[in-house]
């Protein structure tokens, strides 16, 4: 399967925990090329992973975790003997809480009040933490009993002791005839110097990060006293997660609201490494002149990120990639202005960022639940798949976006020009700001010929989201506010059978 190779790689790349997740996960959304290999038993992946880590003397620096239908102490012991030291449970504790496996988690009708937002049903929830504690106590007790039988005092002693596993002799089904378990039950011959369970912490070399070398100390006046700072630095692609440590300090000191906009300005020149600006709060502004790698602005929480080519760049910005894949994944708030094309899965699971780009790859805005995406150029295929919230505007120069690129399962489209003036002005002002920040030639062109450019913008709106927004507006007109208005809108939709 190759999972051992992957594990060795991530262990070298300083992973703290490696999770081998077996059985049901990943079976639905896998690409066609790997779906035949998804949903395999954790026993296979775990054995291979543990053996590979041992052979490369990497086992002692990572925690190996496994999950996938673990339900009993016996399951845990077997997982441990095959090499795991941490164990994930989900289904079984859920059952102890009262889950009846109705498989209606997506319908908001969970009758026992677990997977529902409906207050009438949430009232029916009869479970409690004690039941989970009780269940876990039983699991632990069963583990303890088995350990006593096997002669182990601690989990650490037991990790990877496949020699304690025996094949059931009673299996004489004809299908079992050709099966050879020796690879699973193999224990690599390594010396006593090789640790067989997690014994040391990974050195993440954080002291070498750009934040710890430069940014954090230069941002101190801002963090301590709210004083605006301007930090100019070169950047190279080994500088990963630039700004995140500084952002964490801002959040620690100032809470979720961060600092006033543009308090900490970080101006970078060069090619930034992965995850620039990840999770950064309000008050931080990154301006990258050059390009950025994957995961730009992942989980962005209020910060502002500007990426633009150098002034002397010979490329046509809206035809060339400037940032990698999966930018602004899971972002919750903030702004982004990217003068160029970004990779695949742009703004997947975005719930609040307002982003302007000049082109994007496949699966844009997938599973987006909020925020705004304005794309001034071409997109890849499958745009808006599973998009349940937020709004997107695409400059559809060739007029083929809806017919060839958009996934229409959950969204509706409108020509921008049919929207109200307020909305058209909003798009125009966003382009204006994009030009201010990036000098985008594409933006300038569009503004120069705005009346005909506006004709080519398509608005993408999730159907359910639109209906809820409408209900919310009605509730607010009735004088309801805040959560009350949201609840009223929600109930109106439930009553209508949505």
């Amino acid at each position, binding site marked *: 399967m190759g999972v051992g190779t992957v594990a060795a790689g991530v262990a070298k790349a300083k992973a703290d925990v490696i999770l081998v997740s077996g059985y049901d996960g990943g079976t639905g959304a896998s690409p066609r090329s790997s779906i035949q290999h998804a949903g395999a038993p954790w026993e296979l992946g775990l054995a291979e992973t543990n053996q590979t880590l041992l052979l490369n003397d990497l086992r002692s620096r990572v925690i190996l975790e496994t999950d996938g239908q673990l339900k009993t102490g016996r399951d845990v012991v077997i997982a441990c003997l095959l090499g795991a030291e941490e164990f994930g449970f989900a289904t079984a504790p859920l059952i102890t809480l009262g889950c*009846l496996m*109705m498989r209606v988690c997506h319908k908001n*009708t969970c009758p*026992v009040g677990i997977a529902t937002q409906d207050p009438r049903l949430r009232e029916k929830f009869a479970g409690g933490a004690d039941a989970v504690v009780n269940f876990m106590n039983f699991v632990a007790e069963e583990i303890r009993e088995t350990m006593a039988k096997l002669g182990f005092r601690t989990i650490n002693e037991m990790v990877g002791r496949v020699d304690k596993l025996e094949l059931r002799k009673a299996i004489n089904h004809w299908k079992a005839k050709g099966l050879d378990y020796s690879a699973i039950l193999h224990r690599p011959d390594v010396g006593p110097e090789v640790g067989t369970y997690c014994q040391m912490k990974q050195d993440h070399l954080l002291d070498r990060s750009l934040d710890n070398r430069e940014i954090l100390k230069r941002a101190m006046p801002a963090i301590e006293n709210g004083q605006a700072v301007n930090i100019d630095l070169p950047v190279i692609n080994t500088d990963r997660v630039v700004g995140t440590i500084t952002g964490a300090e801002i959040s620690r000191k100032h809470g979720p609201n961060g600092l006033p906009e543009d308090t900490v300005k970080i101006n970078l020149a060069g090619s930034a490494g992965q995850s620039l600006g990840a999770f950064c709060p309000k008050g931080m502004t990154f301006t990258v002149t050059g390009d950025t790698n994957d995961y730009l602005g992942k989980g962005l929480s209020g910060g502002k990120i500007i990426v633009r080519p150098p002034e002397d760049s010979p490329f046509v910005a809206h035809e060339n990639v400037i940032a990698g894949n999966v930018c602004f994944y899971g972002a919750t708030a903030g702004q982004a202005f990217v003068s160029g094309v970004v990779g695949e899965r742009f703004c997947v699971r975005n719930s609040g960022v307002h982003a302007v780009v000049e082109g994007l790859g496949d699966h844009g805005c997938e599973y987006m639940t909020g925020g705004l995406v304005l794309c001034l150029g071409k997109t890849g295929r499958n745009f808006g798949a599973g998009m349940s919230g937020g709004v997107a505007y695409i400059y559809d120069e060739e007029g083929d976006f809806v017919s060839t690129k958009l996934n229409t399962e959950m969204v509706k489209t409108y020509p921008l020009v049919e929207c109200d003036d307020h909305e058209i002005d909003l798009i125009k002002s966003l382009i204006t700001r994009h030009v201010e920040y990036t000098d985008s030639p594409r933006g300038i062109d569009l503004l120069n010929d705005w009346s005909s450019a506006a004709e080519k913008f398509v608005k993408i709106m999730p159907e359910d989201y639109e209906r809820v927004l409408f209900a919310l507006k009605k509730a607010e007109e009735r004088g309801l506010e805040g959560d009350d208005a949201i609840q009223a809108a929600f109930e109106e939709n439930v009553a209508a*059978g949505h």
Partner: protein
Amino acid sequence: MGKPTGFLEHERQSIPDRSPLERIKDWKEIHEPFDEDKVRQQGSRCMDCGTPYCHTGMTLANMASGCPINNLIPEWNDLVYKGKWRDALARLHKTNNFPEFTGRVCPAPCEGSCVLGVIEPPVTIKSIECSIIDKGFAEGWVTPQPPARRSGKKIAVVGSGPAGMATADQLNKAGHLVTVYERADRIGGLLLYGIPNMKLEKEIVQRRVDLMAAEGIKFVVSTEIGKDLPAKSLLEDFDSVVLCCGATKPRDLPIEGRELKGVHYAMEFLTINTQGLLELKDVTAFETAANSKDVVVIGGGDTGTDCVGTSVRHGCKSITQLEIMPRPPEERADDNPWPEWPKVYKMDYGQEEAKEVFGEDPRNYLTMTKKFSGDDQGNLKGVIICDIEWKMEDGRYSPVEVQGSEREIPAQAAFLAMGFLGPEDTIAEELGLARDSRSNVQADYGRFSTNIEGVFAAGDMRRGQSLVVWAINEGRAAARECDRYLMGETSLP
């Protein structure tokens, strides 16, 4: 199912009963006709559960949980909700030969295990079932379906209760020539004479019998195997014999005064009553059994309830029902969780009627009968009872009399409804059938073959007294095994 939010929008509403004071004036069924739209609405309450316990038919804590014949309940609930009645009927008949019986008399273990019951009153499965088949008959959708081919095999089914009828129906569908023997004058067994008319109208039983006759089943009445016809002759004349003779031996109460005039087994009383109704079509002529009498019913089960309802219709002077167990709780006890059969206090039709007429629930819990007292002519005049407590003795609970609680209640009629012990001995002895420790005919569940080759046993005769659905379950399964025995393979479910 079709409507995920149905259970949030509609409350449980069974087909309503006629008012007690109204319905005790006649012997017609206690239910009102069903309202199609309301039943459809009730069908929408079904939740399309991931694990629909309603059709599992498990045994939990010695009680049925879910439908013993595995009715495809979520499917026909949905079809009814969508108004596809004819499809629902086909789906219902797939597993149930006689939904018009179970829809009326089944205690509905399906509803006890309905997942909706975890949070609110369960889906009205029984009412929906009954509505589907009633509509089917009303629309003329239920017509004789004789088998296309005959196998040439001949099978005798002894007993025409629900097990015998189900066996006969299935074997006939498989193309065998079936003859059903019944010792009573009419077909139906307990369905006919055991269950009173207000619970299951006898025309409904006859309607199904007529249908089966039209499909080619031969019914022979007033012929008791072992008396009128030797059981051995069946072995000679038929390729196989399926015994479905029921567990008709009633539990007696051998106490002082048992021989007094006026002390009867419940089944005698109910049988005479229904016979009278069928023969005379007139209630006045046979209502002397309980008319103007103080009636005591001993036993708190369904048969006891039927005695209460029947006595009330006879115009009894008073009615008392004695139950040795304590009054069940209003809601499930902690040791009786869903999806077990809910052991909770219920007001059945007979008690409801007695309460309307006499002002109170006729049931007395934790009481034991000590003796019957009589007058000089040997007529019953009273029942001496006492209160009891259940005490643990030698590792089991036994009833212990509460000192000073003995008292006499007036009674000119007493009916013993304390259950049944097992099958009668006639056929078993003649054929030399092996019996189990409870005197039932020995045949493994799933195989149903007795110790005599080609002879099968099913229903109460094999499992002891039980529900109509279990009888249908066993009848169907025994038919399958009989078919396999005769043909070497079977396609019966």
